[in-house]
């Protein structure tokens, strides 16, 4: 049951990335280019994706986070780490730099594999290598 739920949630998530246009790095870069606000070239769509996402997710999260057990059984696996660390910020800055270079973050990069473009496949392989390398030297701890 949990595996079917995962498949369905992943599929809905993929629908969302496709419909919102976030599967296209150019839409994302159009948002990150706030420097184009002055000449009218800015695309605020990503802010609306976040807004729509939070509007739906916040009520569900606030309801779910007080549960002691998941509906399909098992523990509620919520993060317990609240520490604001240098590592958190450095990780965010490195990720944001890679995000701004091509326009892919992990979700859209994986979803875009559906298009079968070579560039996307290369990005995903490099991303997995980065994750694997960082984990191999314990940077995920």
């Amino acid at each position: 049951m949990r595996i079917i739920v995962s498949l369905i949630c992943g599929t809905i998530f993929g629908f969302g990335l496709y419909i919102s246009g976030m599967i296209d790095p150019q839409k994302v870069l159009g948002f990150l280019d706030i420097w184009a606000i002055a000449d009218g070239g800015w695309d605020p769509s990503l802010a609306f994706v976040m807004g729509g996402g939070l509007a739906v997710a916040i009520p569900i999260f606030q309801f779910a986070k007080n549960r002691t057990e998941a509906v399909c059984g098992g523990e509620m696996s919520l993060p317990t780490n609240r520490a604001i660390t240098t590592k958190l910020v450095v990780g965010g800055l490195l990720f944001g730099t890679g995000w701004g270079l091509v326009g892919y973050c992990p979700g859209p990069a994986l979803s875009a594999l559906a298009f079968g473009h070579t560039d996307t496949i290369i990005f995903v392989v490099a991303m997995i290598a980065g994750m694997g390398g960082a984990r191999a030297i314990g940077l995920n701890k």
Partner: protein
Amino acid sequence: MENFTPISALIGGGLIGLASGLYLLLNGRIAGISGILGGLLTPTKGGSAVFERLAFIIGLVVGPFILMNATEIEAQSVVTSSLPVIIVAGLLVGLGTTIGSGCTSGHGICGLSRFSLRSLVATLSFMAAGFVTVLVTRHLMGGM
């Protein structure tokens, strides 16, 4: 603002929020894509955890595949960067999300929905770096 698509952005965003909420409510897990993918590289939890992660990622690819083949809804995914930039960017995204314990989904959607200050700091960090990177590549270097 000719590329601005507020309606599809809100609908798509709502679906992303729905998927994240259902994943937490039903399976008790955070729908952070970097965490789900990264967890496959060093599986520690036993049982069905690996298959749950795999199923979510398969869904991520199947969802767009269904829409592009079975509906009139169109989308594209255009990469304009050179090969070295694509590789460096992929490595940075993989490295950064691992060091920073999350990405746009885990910190941006799920973390902010939990009202996590830690996730807010992470989100502001990667957004700031994204803004600055685009400033440098598009406006100071004239495109890469």
